[in-house]
């Protein structure tokens, strides 16, 4: 027979003002199985807690119900008190008499009756509560960082500097991400490469960081603290250990007319190449799709010229297994190409470029050595039109969200252009100027006031070529909505920032949620911005939504500190509110029929099928089994199981039925 203790809290007048607490306590005392029932002014106060502890000891209570505020507020408090008195904390439940009763109803009989109902139902529930032990899982103190942009770099360095191992995976031949392509950066106009390359080198040299470039994640299994990852090292066709990065191969490779990804299509590279001179690692890869030897079976010039004999045409992809305790997703973003825009020519006009291409034109290390020249004929443009929100905030054809970074980089572009071509005219077509950030609006004002950039409020309807000029038809809504035509030499579209290609597949591989635009979803938009809903997987940078460098770096450090916090523990403890499949004595072993329905329904892949064997090893039955490390306790499987073989600890069928029966 249970011996339940009931403790009704007045919360000063907060509860007692509307609910007759004494009456509730009295009613509770008459419920079978209740051996102690009191009311008190402030249950959470020290004397209140002592009351509970003493009652547990004196009356040898087998369960405790506290009728007070929301369990979301004080459940931990009272469970701790129970534990201190030697009662398993999971034998304590709270009835919400304040938020769900006294604060929301008038003082009346009915309100007190409701309070009694709430208490009674918790008494019935707690009678069926089982003592539970928190789940302990070990932690592998190594982190997997996916993506080697500034987000991945920052997160890796922070984690590595905290003394933990980092395995960094970057799918391109070099780390650096988009930041390595930028010319100068707002709002300070410092040179992007100058601040980035030292960090890249630091990553390469850090004793705690293992770098896998030209690699991708093959699969990820396991759970927080205990992930197993497979990484595919794509064949570079170059022996990295032998290669000294001398560059002879790229210089001599006869296949040179390949559009350079790093230069956003504005420059050329060879078939064996290093994406850019400051690349980390500074080791080339052979682009098999373009290499003459791989395509036609002849050439091998690189092999001949390589002084260290590092070329390996027969190299194959390698799969590497690693074990990690946490994952940081930092796979960044992409921008739309100009061919996305029908009314701006479907990418047909060479002198309509996107923002990244402009960065390359303005970069001292770019294809024009930083001189702004238009792609079609290499002339310095006299009039440049910048089009903001290209593809962004365009539910019809593009994406409905604001890409956040383009207002700022457009102001920067216009400014850089004016700094380089003093006599030129720069126009910016915009809808709103979004420049929230330290020194951001000042930056935009500088472009307008000091550099004479003309901001036109309106969208561009169409761009076409006529007489060697690009005719830009827009509207100035501040000038009475009349159409406006500007004949430009160069048009720069601030194209929308979108999820990096392959983000959706990656999210599915990792079982993290993502939004309809394939950006990874944070656990809570305000309070858990660097966590995903999957424990142990964290987010950094533009893979969550487009963002600028300062924000990316702060988030990366945030994610790193979460990882470091995780790794500071010997073992992880988790609430034991997980599903279990019942196990009965032979001959049944379990009422589970092995139908397997629960398996695909579990959002966390926590359920597997297990063979139950007799002592001599013969399989007698296949039954479901829940991995308590993975189970998050949602209960979906329980609702689904037709024979009710699977149940959720803390919310078992019988507990809830009992609770209902008392209501």
């Amino acid at each position, binding site marked *: 027979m249970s011996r339940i203790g009931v403790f009704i809290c007045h919360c000063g007048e907060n509860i007692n003002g509307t609910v007759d607490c004494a009456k509730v306590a009295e009613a509770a005392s008459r419920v079978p199985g209740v051996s102690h029932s009191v009311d008190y002014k402030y249950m959470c106060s020290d004397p209140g807690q002592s009351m509970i502890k003493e009652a547990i000891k004196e009356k040898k209570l087998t369960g405790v119900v506290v009728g007070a505020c929301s369990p979301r507020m004080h459940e931990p408090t009272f469970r701790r008190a129970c534990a201190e008195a030697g009662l398993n904390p999971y034998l304590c439940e709270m009835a919400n008499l304040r938020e769900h009763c006294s604060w929301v109803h008038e003082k009346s009989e009915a309100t007190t009756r409701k309070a009694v109902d709430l208490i009674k139902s918790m008494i019935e529930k707690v009678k069926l509560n089982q003592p539970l032990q928190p789940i302990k899982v070990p932690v592998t103190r190594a982190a997997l960082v996916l993506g080697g942009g500034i987000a991945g770099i920052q997160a890796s360095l922070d984690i590595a500097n905290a003394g933990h191992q980092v395995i960094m995976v970057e799918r391109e031949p070099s780390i650096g991400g988009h930041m390595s392509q930028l010319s100068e950066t707002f709002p300070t106009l410092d040179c992007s490469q100058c601040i980035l390359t030292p960090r890249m080198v630091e990553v390469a040299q850090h004793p705690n960081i293992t770098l896998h470039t030209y690699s991708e994640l093959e699969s990820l299994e396991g759970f927080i603290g205990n992930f197993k990852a497979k990484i595919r090292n794509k064949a570079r066709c170059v022996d990295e250990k032998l290669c000294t990065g001398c560059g002879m191969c790229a210089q001599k490779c006869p296949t040179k007319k390949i559009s350079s990804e790093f230069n956003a299509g504005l420059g050329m590279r060879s078939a064996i190449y290093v994406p850019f001179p400051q690349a980390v690692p500074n080791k080339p890869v052979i682009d098999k799709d373009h290499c003459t030897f791989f395509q036609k079976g002849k050439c091998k010039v690189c092999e001949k010229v390589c002084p260290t004999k590092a070329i390996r045409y027969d190299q194959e992809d390698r799969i590497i297994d690693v074990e990690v305790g946490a994952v940081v997703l930092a796979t960044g973003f992409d921008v739309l190409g100009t061919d996305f825009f029908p009314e701006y020519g479907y990418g047909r006009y060479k002198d309509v470029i996107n923002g990244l291409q402009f960065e390359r034109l303005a970069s001292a290390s770019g294809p024009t050595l930083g001189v702004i020249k238009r792609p079609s004929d290499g002339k310095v443009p006299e009039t440049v039109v910048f089009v903001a929100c290209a593809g962004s905030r365009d539910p019809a054809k593009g994406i409905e969200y604001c890409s956040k970074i383009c207002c700022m980089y457009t102001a920067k572009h216009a400014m850089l252009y004016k700094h380089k071509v003093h006599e030129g005219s720069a126009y910016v077509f915009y809808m709103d100027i979004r420049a929230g950030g330290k020194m951001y609006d000042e930056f935009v004002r500088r472009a307008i006031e000091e550099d004479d950039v003309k901001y036109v409020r309106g969208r561009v*309807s*169409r761009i076409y070529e006529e007489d060697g000029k690009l005719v830009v038809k827009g*509207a100035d*809504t501040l000038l009475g*909505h*009349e159409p406006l035509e500007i004949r430009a030499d160069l048009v720069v579209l601030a194209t929308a920032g979108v999820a990096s290609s392959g983000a959706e597949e990656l999210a599915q591989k990792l079982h993290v949620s993502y939004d309809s635009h394939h950006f990874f979803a944070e656990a809570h938009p305000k309070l858990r911005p660097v966590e995903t809903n999957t424990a142990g997987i964290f987010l950094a940078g533009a893979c969550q939504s487009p963002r600028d460098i300062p924000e990316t770096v702060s988030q990366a450090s945030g994610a790193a500190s979460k990882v470091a916090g995780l790794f500071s523990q010997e073992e992880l403890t988790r609430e034991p509110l997980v599903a279990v499949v019942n196990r009965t004595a032979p001959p049944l072993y379990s009422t589970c029929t092995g139908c397997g329905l629960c398996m695909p329904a579990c959002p966390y892949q926590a359920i597997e099928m297990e063979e139950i064997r007799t002592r001599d090893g013969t399989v007698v039955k296949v039954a479901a089994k829940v991995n308590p490390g993975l189970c998050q306790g949602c209960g979906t499987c329980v609702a689904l199981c037709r024979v009710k073989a699977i149940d959720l600890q803390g919310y078992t069928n019988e507990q809830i039925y009992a609770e209902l029966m008392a209501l």
Partner: protein
Amino acid sequence: MGAITHSRKSNSLPALLQKFTGVAVSRCYQCGKCSAGCPLAEEMDYTPSRILRMLQLGLDGHEDSILRSFSLWVCLACETCYARCPQEVDIPKMMDFLRAESVSRKKVNPRGRDLLKFHQTLLDSVRYTGRLYEVGLIAGYKARTLNIFQDLMLAPRLYLLGKLKLFPHFIKNRKSLSRIYEKTGA
């Protein structure tokens, strides 16, 4: 301009527009792209985005100005605006509605009357013959607008080229057309 009135009353122009066509003026975020691409914007007294703005704001006199505007009549339903509007505001549909409203409230712009007559003449021709009778159309239109000389030079040449027929085509089942006209109240 007057003060902001609460024009979101159920009989306000935007409310009626939404009710009968589904076009919600609040969707328009005033980017001006429609006006920028409209081939006839220069001929209009209010460009499409401006009409939308006036509908959104609903200041005293705005509705009247819109219904009396020439824009309604010069818009050709070329659909350029709608094809490019990022917010998918169906401006041609809106124009159709406003035009009909302008006719029924007798607020047709003086310069729009010619166009109205043209369309009416054409529909008359279809009503009585079942098809479009071009000579009749031109003659009827010119008569209605007293614009006799406008195309005087062109018609005989078209006739010589075999492009104009002096007698109309009649379809057989003209009753079925009368029915359509009656039932649609045209």
